[in-house]
C-alpha cells in the first residue's frame, strides 16, 4: 500500500517530521515500510507553456515548435504528439528533468520536451501532450506538486483495516509525532432516503448506505486529484469514479458509483446470488455466481458482486447524469472466500477482507458529497441518506491493571499517565483510577484487531518503543531438559555415517508420478498434493529411493565413486488420518567401474555397524533391483530393511548399491545396554573345517547348519574363506571351543571335531 506524504500531512495539524524520516518511524512503531521515494519532484521545474508555432518536419511525424515557456524563455522543441499545434497551452519539461536532454532530432535541435499527462506522472493518458484550458506560460502545472511516497508492506497491515487508508495511517503518524489528527466531518443534510435498501442477510452485510445525486457532469478530474491517485498507484478514470477511489485510499472505505438511470426499480437488494446467476462486471468479464457470492441487485438482477467489483451495465459513462453512490460494509471472511473463488482480488475485496469498520460508510459518503461538489460543478444531492444498519455486537471495554501492563512489557517504571497518553493518542477511550484501566476501543479497531488486554500491550509497547525496554534475563528454574531419544539416536547415526565416508544429502518430500511408477510404488499409497504449482510435487514420498536414484545418476556424471546417505521420512497414507511418517536411512555406495560386489559388501559392513548382529537373507528382487543382488536385512528375526544393487537399467553409468533401513525398527530392536560378561579364564581351542559346497550355495546357510551341529562347547563359528578349484567350490570355517571351568582336553576337542564332520557329512 502506497501512502502519499502530502496526503498524510493534510490530515495532521502541524506535522514537522520530514518526509525522509517518516518511513523509519512507521517501521519502528506501526508497520513495515518497504521503501520511500520521491514522486513528482519535477513539478518544481515543469511549467505551463504556449505553443507559438508548429511546423511539420518533412518525412516524419514530428513537428518543430517554438514554445513560450515564460520562466525559461522561448524554446525550440521537437514534438511528435498528434495534438501539437500552435496556440495550445501545454507542459514544458526543461532539460535535466524526467531524463530530458538537449538533443538533435532528425537534425533539428530540441531544447526540452512537451509532455503528456503520463510522462508527467499525472495519469495514464498518453494519447498526446497535455492541454490546459487556461494559464500563463511559466506558471507551475496547476494542482501538481512534488511528493514523497511511502510504501508499506501489505502483510504488515493484515490486522489493521484502518491502515488501508491515509486517514488511518495519519492517525498513527500523528500519535508518533505527538500532533493532533484533523477530524473528518460526518454531517449530511437530512432528507428522505432517495433509494430503498433491502438487506437479506445482516451477517453478510451489516450496513449499506447510499446517496443519490443529480445534475452530474462526467469529466476528467482536476489534475491535483489525478496526480494524487496516480501517486498511490490508482488510475484516474473520470471525476466520479476518481472520487470513489480517492475515498477508498483516504478512509479505507471502498465505494461504488452506479449510473442511477440504468438501475431498474427503486430498490437496491443485497442478497446471496442464485446458483448460476450471471453478473457482467466493470472489467468486461461476466462472472457466473453461486450462493457463496453476495450480490447487489436491482429489479433486473445483479448490478455488482458485493465487496469485489461493480457491474458493467450500470457503470459511470459519459452520458451519466444521475448517480447512486454506495458505501457498504460486508462480512470479511465471506468476501475473502468469494474473491478467492472468483480469482478476482480487487482493491475493494482486499480492504473488506480485513474487516472494515461499519461506522465508516456514512463518513465516506459525507466526504464524497464534499468532494463531488468540487469536481462536478452543479451536482445536487437528491433527498437524504439511505442507510440500513445492523450494528455488530459492541466490543466490551477492556480492563487491565497498570501492574499487569508493566509485567507484560517488563517495564517497571511505566506510569499510568504514559499509558493514558498513548492510548488516547490512538483514539482509545481511557478511564483510569489508581492504576486500574478501563479502555473502550474505537470502532475502526474493534472489528477484529483489538479485543483483549494483550492487544493493548502492543499499542503501549510500540508507542513507547521496544528499544526503551531494559533487557532482563528471564527468571526460570534450572532443569535438565528431557530429550527425546530419537533425536539423540539420529544425531549419533549421522555421525557414524559421515565418519565412515558417507556424505549427507537432503531431498524433497515430493516425488512425481513417473518416479513412483518407475520404482513400482503404488500411486494410491501416496498422499497427493491437491494444489502443486510445479511439476514433480504431486505426491509425498513413500520411499526415499526415487530421489536417491536421481542423486545417483546426477553424481555419477561427476564422480568415479561416491558414498552418500539421506535420513528422511517416508510418508504413508492412512486414509483421512494423519499419515504415518517413518524415518528411513538410504545409504548409497557407487562405483563407475568394478563388479559391484565391493559396493554391496561395503553396505553390508555398514549395516553391521548400524545394527550390530544383523544378517542378510536373499530376497526376491523388485523390478528396479538387480535380480541376483537383493536381500532383506534382519535384526532379531525382524526385517529392518533392504540391501540391493540398482538394476543396471536404472543407472546410466556404473554400479550403485543401496542400503535402505527403517530407523524406527532399528531403534526398537537395538541391544539395550546389558550386564558385563566376565572374561574367560581358561584357554580355548580351535579347528578349521572345509566344506565342499554347490556352485550357488549360500555361506549363510552353511554357517547356520554348522552352528546347529557344533554342540554346547562351541564358542564361535566363523567363516574364513571361499575356494573355487578344479574339484569345485568349498568353504572353510573356524570353530572355537572352550569351557568356563576348565581347559578342554585333546580328546574332547577331537570328539567335537568328529561330531561336526559327521553332522556335515564329511
Amino acid at each position: 500500500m502506497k501512502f502519499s506524504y502530502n496526503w498524510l500531512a493534510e490530515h495532521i495539524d502541524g506535522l514537522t517530521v520530514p518526509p525522509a524520516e517518516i518511513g523509519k518511524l512507521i517501521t519502528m512503531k506501526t508497520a513495515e515500510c518497504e521503501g520511500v521515494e520521491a514522486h513528482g519532484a519535477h513539478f518544481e521545474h515543469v511549467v505551463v507553456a504556449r505553443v507559438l508555432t508548429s511546423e511539420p518536419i518533412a518525412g516524419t511525424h514530428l513537428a518543430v515548435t517554438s514554445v513560450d515557456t515564460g520562466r525559461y524563455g522561448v524554446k525550440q522543441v521537437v514534438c511528435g504528439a498528434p495534438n501539437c499545434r500552435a496556440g495550445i497551452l501545454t507542459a514544458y519539461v526543461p532539460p535535466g528533468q524526467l531524463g530530458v536532454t538537449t538533443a538533435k532530432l532528425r537534425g533539428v535541435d530540441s531544447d526540452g520536451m512537451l509532455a503528456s499527462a503520463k510522462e508527467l506522472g499525472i495519469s495514464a493518458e498518453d494519447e498526446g501532450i497535455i492541454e490546459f484550458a487556461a494559464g500563463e506560460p511559466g506558471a507551475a502545472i496547476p494542482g501538481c506538486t512534488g511528493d514523497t511516497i511511502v510504501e508499506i508492506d501489505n502483510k504488515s497491515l493484515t490486522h489493521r483495516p484502518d491502515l488501508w487508508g491515509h486517514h488511518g495511517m495519519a492517525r498513527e503518524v500523528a500519535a508518533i509525532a505527538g500532533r493532533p489528527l484533523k477530524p473528518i466531518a460526518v454531517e449530511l443534510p437530512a432528507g428522505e432516503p432517495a433509494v430503498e435498501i433491502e438487506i437479506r442477510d445482516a451477517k453478510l452485510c451489516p450496513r449499506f448506505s447510499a446517496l443519490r445525486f443529480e445534475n452530474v457532469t462526467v469529466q476528467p478530474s482536476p489534475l491535483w486529484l489525478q496526480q494524487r491517485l496516480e501517486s498511490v498507484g490508482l488510475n484516474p478514470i473520470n471525476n466520479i469514479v476518481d472520487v470513489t477511489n480517492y475515498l477508498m485510499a483516504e478512509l479505507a472505505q471502498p465505494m461504488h458509483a452506479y449510473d442511477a438511470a440504468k438501475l431498474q426499480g427503486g430498490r437496491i437488494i443485497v442478497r446471496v446470488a442464485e446458483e448460476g446467476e450471471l453478473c457482467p462486471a466493470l472489467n468486461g468479464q461476466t462472472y457466473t455466481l453461486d450462493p457463496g457470492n453476495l450480490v447487489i441487485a436491482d429489479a433486473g438482477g445483479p448490478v455488482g458482486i458485493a465487496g469485489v467489483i461493480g457491474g458493467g451495465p450500470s457503470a459511470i459513462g459519459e452520458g451519466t447524469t444521475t448517480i447512486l453512490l454506495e458505501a457498504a460494509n460486508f462480512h470479511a471472511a465471506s468476501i475473502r472466500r468469494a474473491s478467492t473463488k472468483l480469482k478476482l482480488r480487487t482493491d475493494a475485496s482486499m480492504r473488506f477482507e480485513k474487516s472494515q469498520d461499519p461506522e465508516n460508510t456514512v463518513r465516506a459518503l459525507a466526504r464524497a458529497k464534499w468532494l463531488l461538489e468540487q469536481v462536478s460543478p452543479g451536482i445536487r444531492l437528491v433527498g437524504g441518506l439511505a442507510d440500513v444498519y445492523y450494528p455488530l455486537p459492541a466490543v466490551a471495554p477492556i480492563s487491565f491493571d497498570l501492574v499487569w501492563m508493566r509485567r507484560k512489557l517488563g517495564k517497571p517504571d511505566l506510569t499510568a499517565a504514559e499509558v493514558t497518553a498513548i492510548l488516547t493518542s490512538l483514539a482509545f477511550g481511557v478511564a483510569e483510577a489508581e492504576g486500574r484501566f478501563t479502555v473502550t476501543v474505537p470502532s475502526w479497531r474493534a472489528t477484529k484487531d483489538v479485543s483483549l488486554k494483550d492487544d493493548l500491550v502492543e499499542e503501549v509497547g510500540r508507542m513507547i518503543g521496544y528499544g526503551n525496554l531494559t533487557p532482563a534475563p528471564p527468571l526460570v528454574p534450572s532443569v535438565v531438559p528431557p530429550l527425546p531419544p530419537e533425536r539423540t539416536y539420529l544425531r549419533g547415526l549421522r555421525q557414524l555415517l559421515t565418519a565412515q565416508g558417507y556424505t549427507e544429502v537432503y531431498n524433497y518430500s515430493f516425488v512425481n508420478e513417473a518416479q513412483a511408477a518407475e520404482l513400482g510404488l503404488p500411486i494410491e499409497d501416496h498422499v497427493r498434493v491437491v494444489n502443486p504449482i510445479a511439476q514433480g510435487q504431486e505426491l509425498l514420498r513413500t520411499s526415499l529411493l526415487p530421489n536417491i536414484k536421481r542423486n545417483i545418476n546426477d553424481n555419477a556424471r561427476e564422480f568415479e565413486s561416491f558414498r552418500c546417505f539421506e535420513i528422511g521420512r517416508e510418508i504413508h497414507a492412512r486414509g483421512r488420518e494423519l499419515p504415518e511418517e517413518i524415518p528411513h536411512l538410504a545409504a548409497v555406495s557407487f562405483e563407475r567401474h568394478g563388479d559391484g560386489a565391493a559396493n554391496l559388501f561395503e553396505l553390508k559392513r555398514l549395516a553391521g555397524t548400524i545394527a550390530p548382529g544383523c544378517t542378510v537373507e536373499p530376497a526376491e528382487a523388485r523390478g528396479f533391483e538387480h535380480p541376483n543382488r537383493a536381500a532383506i536385512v534382519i535384526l532379531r528375526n525382524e526385517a529392518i530393511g533392504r540391501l540391493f544393487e540398482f538394476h543396471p537399467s536404472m543407472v546410466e553409468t556404473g554400479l550403485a548399491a543401496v542400503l535402505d533401513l527403517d530407523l524406527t525398527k532399528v531403534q526398537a530392536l537395538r541391544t539395550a545396554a546389558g550386564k558385563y560378561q566376565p572374561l574367560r579364564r581358561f584357554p580355548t581351542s580351535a579347528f578349521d573345517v572345509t566344506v565342499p559346497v554347490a556352485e550357488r550355495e549360500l555361506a549363510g546357510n552353511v554357517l547356520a547348519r554348522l552352528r546347529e551341529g557344533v554342540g554346547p562347547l562351541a564358542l564361535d563359528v566363523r567363516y574364513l574363506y571361499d575356494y573355487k578349484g578344479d574339484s569345485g567350490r568349498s568353504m572353510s570355517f573356524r570353530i572355537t571351543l572352550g569351557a568356563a571351568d576348565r581347559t578342554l582336553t585333546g580328546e574332547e576337542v577331537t570328539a567335537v571335531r568328529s561330531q561336526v564332520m559327521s553332522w556335515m557329512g564329511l
Partner: protein
Amino acid sequence: MIETQLSELAAATEARIAAVTTAEELEAIRVEVLGRKGRLAEVSKDMGKLSPEQRGVVGKLLNAAKQTLETALTARKTAFDEAALSARLEREWLDLTAPAAGAGLGSLHPLTQIQAEIEDLFVSLGFTVLDGPEVETEFNNFDALNIPPDHPARDMQDTFWLSNGHLLRTHTSPVQVRGMKKLGPPLRMIAPGRVFRNEEVDASHEHTFYQLEGMMVDKDVSVAHLIYFMKTLLSAIFKRDVTVRLRPGYFPFVEPGFELDIQCLICQGAGCPVCKQSGWVELLPCGLVHPNVLRLGGIDPEEYSGFAFGLGLTRLVMMRYAIDDIRQLQGGDLRFLTQFAF
C-alpha cells in the same frame, strides 16, 4: 701335541670367520667348531686321556679359544644382522604422499550441522527438543495458532493442501501446540524441522526449507525478557555480540508480535548493500504467545505467559556460508555437499 692342534684350529677358524660372506656360512662354522658335536667338543672329549697337570693347561687353552671364537662369531653375526636389517629398512621405503586407500570423512549436510549447533545451545539453556510431523492438520497449523479459516493471514503462507484433507506444515509453529499439551507449563522447548510453502523455486525461494520454533512459557515472561534472551542467543549463534531491535510485526499467534532485526554484521550498522543501507537485517519473527494459543494448548493465560520465536535455519546456513543459491541445499550435488566436511 694337543696344544698345537688347538691353537692351529683356533687360528684357522678365526681366519675362516673373518673370511665368511654370508650369515649361513658363519652359522656353518659355528656348528662345525663350537657346536655340541663340533671340533672343540671333540678336543675336550680327548682331554680325559691327559694327565691332570696337562688337563689344567689344555682346559685353560680350550676355554680361551672358545671365548675368542665366540666373540669373533658374535661380532660377525651382529654385523650380518645389522646389514640385513638395514637392507630391509632400505627396501621398505614408502611414498607417504601417495593417497590413502578407502573412504575419507563424509560430510554432514550444512543444515544438520547448524541445527545440531543450535539445538545444543538451547539444551544448555534448559530447552527440550521436540519433533512434529511434516503433514499436519489444518487445525494445528492454523486454527490452534489463532488463524481461523478465511483469515487473511492464511495468505501469508502459501499452503500445499493434501488429498487426505490435511496439509504440509507451513511453519514449525504447530509444534507449539503439541509441545504445550505434552509438557504443560512451565516449559521451554524448541522444534526444528522441515516446512513447506507452495511457491515457485528460484535462487532465493524454496518450497521446502528449515525452521526452528522456540517457546518459553512461565510465570511473568515479558517483552524485556524476550529481548534479553534473543540477544544472548543470537550472540551465541553468530559468535559475536549482536545488537537487536524489535519493531511491530503481525503474526496472529503472538500478541504483541515483533519483527526482530539485528544490526548488520557486515557494516556494523553504517549501511551497506547487504542491509540495503538501513544498517539492520530482518532476522526473525517473535512475540508474546497469544492468550488464545495458550488456552488451546491447555495453559491458563491469566497464570502463565510466554514468548515464541521462529528462526530460519535455511537462512542462517545461507548467511554463514554465503550460499547464493538456495536450491543447492536440496539439490543432492555432492560437489556442493562435500565442501561441508569439517
